[in-house]
Structure formats: C-alpha cells, structure tokens
C-alpha cells in the first residue's frame, strides 16, 4: 500500500473498537501503533477480554474487529447471525507454545506429549524429575504456567490434557509472563510453558524443550511452527472483521494497513507469520 502521510482529503478520522485475545493483542497493538503514524486522526482502541469475551462483544456488533486465537465456534457464529452481524475471518499468523526449563538443566532436551500430560494432568503428584522419566536425576520439579484466565492456558490444557481448562492446580500461575520467565530462569528444577513470543524475548535466559508427538522431537522454530510439524502446541491466530464496519473508510484503511504490514509485524512480535499470499487473499476477500 501507499504509506505517504495523509494530506488534506485522505486524512481519516473516527474510532475503531477492537477486543479479544491477549495472544493476538501484541500484533494488533503493533499494527495500531504503526497505523497511527499514517492516520493520526483515527482512534484505535484495543482491549483484552479474551477470545471468548471478545466474540461476545463482536457478535452483538459492539466491536469492529475481534482478535481470536482460535476459529469462531458454531454457537458464536449463530449468535452473530441472529444479530445480523456478518463477518470475515482473516488468518494473521501462528503461535507456538513453548515449553521451557532452566538454563542449567542439562538432562532435559525433549519431552513427549504423554510425559507432559503426566506432569500437568489434574491430580498429578509428580514433583521430582526422576518421576518424569527413569534416568532423570533426583531434582525437585516445580511448575510454572500462565494464569488460568488466559487463552494460552486454555490452549495448552486442551492439547495436552485433552480438555480445555483441565489442569493440575498446584503450579505457579501468573498473568505476567515476565514472572514465568524470571521464575524459570531462577529455579533449577523449573518447567513451564508460555507463548513462543516470550521465549523469543528471553532466548538467552531459558532453555526450550523439544516436543515429541510420536513423530520425533521437534523444537519450536518459525519453520516447524508454520509447517505444522511442531505439534500439538502451535495454533492459528485470527482477526475477525465485521462486514458492516468495512464500509467505514477508516476501518478499510486500518485493515489494508494490517494486511500490508502483517507479515513483518507478526514476526516482530515473536509469532510466526503466515505466507504473504494469505494476507493478499484476506485483502481480496474483504474487497480492499
């Protein structure tokens, strides 16, 4: 697109309401921040009510765009239809959940999904690495994970424990990923998980663990996440756009900008962008 500063007639105004997933939030925030340099008259409000919470507002028409770290559910789509809200789904990237241990941990390189499940399933009593796998040393195991009130938690529990929000409870939970980083970095026996983006930020302080879903150990890397070989802990990121809002020039401009810079900004925020063609396809579908 053109990124010339607005002059006279093409200076836009208005407010764009965005809500939804905290995982997608950094990308949308980055887009909004960059977009503001082009169109300082447009007010972009980005809230974080979670994917579900965001859809709740989106499907009644309160918001223009909804950030989502999963596809919309049937029930949510029905609610939208009932309220006369038509929408477009736009894929913007992929997130890989990363499993982390302390830098000084020299015995763990790879864990199987079953082992993760043994550790994280509700009622699990594994508190020592030697109970995880024969051959691991006698080292106290302490767990770190995101806040129960987050999309990351939902996603991890669904994939590892088989049902959303099912997990053992006695781990150090934090909505503040920094605490997880610090906790794991400061605790020899730590094991934890969080978004790939935060691992990217703290590569030097933490050690990432490869995951074996039956097809061998795979490390989360842009290539493995994008091609889906990093299983099962990679997930798609979307934004949903209300078709009616698309009639407004400022929303149009914003989405155009999103798709034009999505590839770069998604990467900058630590996620794995989708193929540039997907952004182009999104644009085409929205008629931009």
């Amino acid at each position, binding site marked *: 697109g053109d990124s010339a500063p607005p002059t006279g007639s093409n200076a836009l105004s208005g407010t764009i309401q965005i809500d939804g*997933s*905290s995982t997608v939030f950094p990308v949308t925030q980055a887009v909004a921040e960059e977009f503001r340099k082009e169109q300082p008259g447009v007010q972009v409000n980005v809230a*974080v*009510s*979670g*994917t*579900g*919470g965001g859809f*709740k507002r989106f499907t009644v028409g309160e918001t223009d765009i909804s950030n989502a770290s999963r596809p919309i559910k049937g029930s949510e789509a029905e609610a939208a239809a009932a309220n006369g809200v038509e929408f477009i789904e736009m894929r913007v990237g992929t997130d890989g959940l990363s499993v982390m241990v302390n830098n000084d941990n020299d015995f763990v390189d790879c864990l199987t999904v079953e082992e993760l499940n043994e550790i994280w*399933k*509700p*009622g699990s009593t594994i508190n020592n690495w030697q109970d995880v796998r024969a051959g691991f040393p006698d080292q106290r195991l*302490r767990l770190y994970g995101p*806040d*129960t*009130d*987050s*999309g990351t*938690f939902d996603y991890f*529990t669904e994939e590892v424990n088989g*049902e959303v*929000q*099912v*997990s053992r*409870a*006695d*781990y*150090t*939970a*934090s*909505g*503040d990923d920094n*605490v997880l980083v*610090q*906790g794991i970095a*400061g*605790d*020899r026996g730590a094991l934890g998980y969080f978004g790939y983006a935060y691992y990217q930020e703290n590569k030097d302080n933490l050690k990432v663990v490869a995951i074996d879903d039956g097809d061998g150990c795979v490390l989360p890397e842009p290539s493995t996440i994008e091609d889906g070989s990093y299983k099962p802990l990679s997930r798609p990121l979307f934004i949903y756009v209300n078709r009616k809002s698309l009639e407004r020039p400022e929303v149009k401009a914003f989405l155009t900008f999103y798709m034009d810079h999505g590839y770069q900004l998604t990467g900058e925020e630590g996620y794995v962008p989708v193929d540039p063609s997907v952004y182009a396809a999104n644009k085409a579908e929205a008629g931009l």
Partner: protein
Amino acid sequence: MQLSRNRKRGALQGRIVHWLFFACAAMSVITTFGIVASLLRESLGFFGEIPVWEFLFGTTWSPILKDAEGNRHYGVLPLVSGTLLVASIAAAVAVPAGLAIAIYLSEYAPDKVRRLIKPILEVLAGIPTVVYGYFALTFVTPLLRSIPIQVFREDLIVYNALSAGLVMGLMIIPMVSSLSEDAMVAVPRSLRHAAYALGGTRLEVSLRIVVPAAFSGIVASFILAFSRAIGETMLVTIAAGATPRLTFNPIESIQTMTAFIVQLAHGETPHGSLEYNTIFAVGLLLFAFTLGMNVLGHFLVRRFREEY
C-alpha cells in the same frame, strides 16, 4: 433603611438548602447500600448454583481450571488463607515497628523531631500501592533471594507471600504508628507524672502506664491496619502471585481475594458467566471481612476516647 428581605422566599430557600445538604450526607448511606446491593445482585446468580457453605468452607479454589473429572471448585478458603497470610506477615512487621515508633514519638521525641518524622512517615502512607508492588517484585524478592540460605536461594519463587507481606508491612507502619500515637498522646499527662514521681524510668512509664491506658486505641490501630492489609489489592496482585493455595508457608506463591478479583476483572473470562460472578461473591466476602473489622476498630477508638 433600604433593607429588603423576602421572608417567605428565605424560608423556602432555607428548607431547600437543608434538604440538599441532607441529600449529600445521605449519599454515603446510599453508597453503602449500593455496595451491598450490587455485590448481592451479582453474586446471587453465583450462590444460586454454588451453595454458600461450599463457597465458605471448600478448600479448593479453581473457578476456571478443571480437575480430572472436568469439575471446577469454588471453595474460597485458599483465597482467605492467602489473604490472611500476607496480612499476618504485614502485621508482624507493622505492629512492632509501628508501636515502637508511636512510643518514641509520643514519649521520647523532642517536638522538632516529631514534627520532622511524622510527615515523612505520612509520605509512606501516601505512596500508590502499585509502587509498592513494583518494589516488592523487583527489589525485595531479588534481595531475599540473594540471602545465602537454602530456603531463600532455592525455594523462594518470584511470586511469594513473604515479600508482598514485608512490603505491605512497611506500607501500613504509618497507620499503626499514627493511630497508636494519637491514643497515647490522649493519655492524660497527670498519669505520667504520677508514675515518674514514683521513680519510674521513661521506659517503665511508657510501657506500664501509657501503653496500657491507651490499649484499646492501640488495638484499634492494629485492627484498622490489618483491615487495610486485607483489602490491599495492587501490591498483592503484582507481587504475591496468582496461585490459590491453602497454605501458610510464606515462601509460596498464593492468591488473595483482592488479587483474584483483579485477575478476573482484567482477564479474559466473559462477563456474566458463572466464573465471572465469582468476583462479586469474593467481593462480598471481602466487604464483610473488612466491615466487621472496621466496625470493631472504630468502636474501640471511641471507647478509649470516652475513658478519661
């Protein structure tokens, strides 16, 4: 004289003004009703599904996270224990320190020193609690972890009740010291003189005469400070963790009632859901807790005022 006065209008105006002022005062009562009513309204849905006794006496709190059978648990005791744990650590810091400061200021300090120190301590009370949270998380916890003891070096995690409690103690010191000092200053000088005239030292007069005479006021200051600690929110949200856990081990990460409310209010749980309404149930409990303590504290303050 060219005085003019519409008496009728004056009287009417007087009545209107009276009622306006009355309405202002009544606002406070309305606020209380508003608090109770809105908390009750929102938590009624919750108590419709979860029996009150299960809420009050259950020992597992996992309103979002499900167990192996896919059930959630709504026993608030872990939040209560977390709250009391942090508040107790705070009290363990603030009560002795605050009392010692109060004794010093009321019995020992020359006027100049008192006038210098009191405003400085008041600054402590005026610092926003986010700042204390920041301080606990980024300074006190690392400081504790640098203590070369196994417990601190190895077992103390970033979020823990200990540093939150210690810093909260620092925060409520001025509350204890200034209310206690008020109570001690109110003890008649004549009692001190009588004790000095019997050969008492300053310490004996302070501890055996002044402190006992001001006792209910001092206790009231403890209660009010403890109540403040229970209701404190940002500090624990930032520094004490988000792990509801029925424990009294200070080096563990825990979650307080207040931090839970912030977590959900700030998080992704959809409004209106059962999970979401838990915050009003917890809020109601918190309100009841602090209300009880405040009533007791103010009752004691009044009692000691009436004593002399």
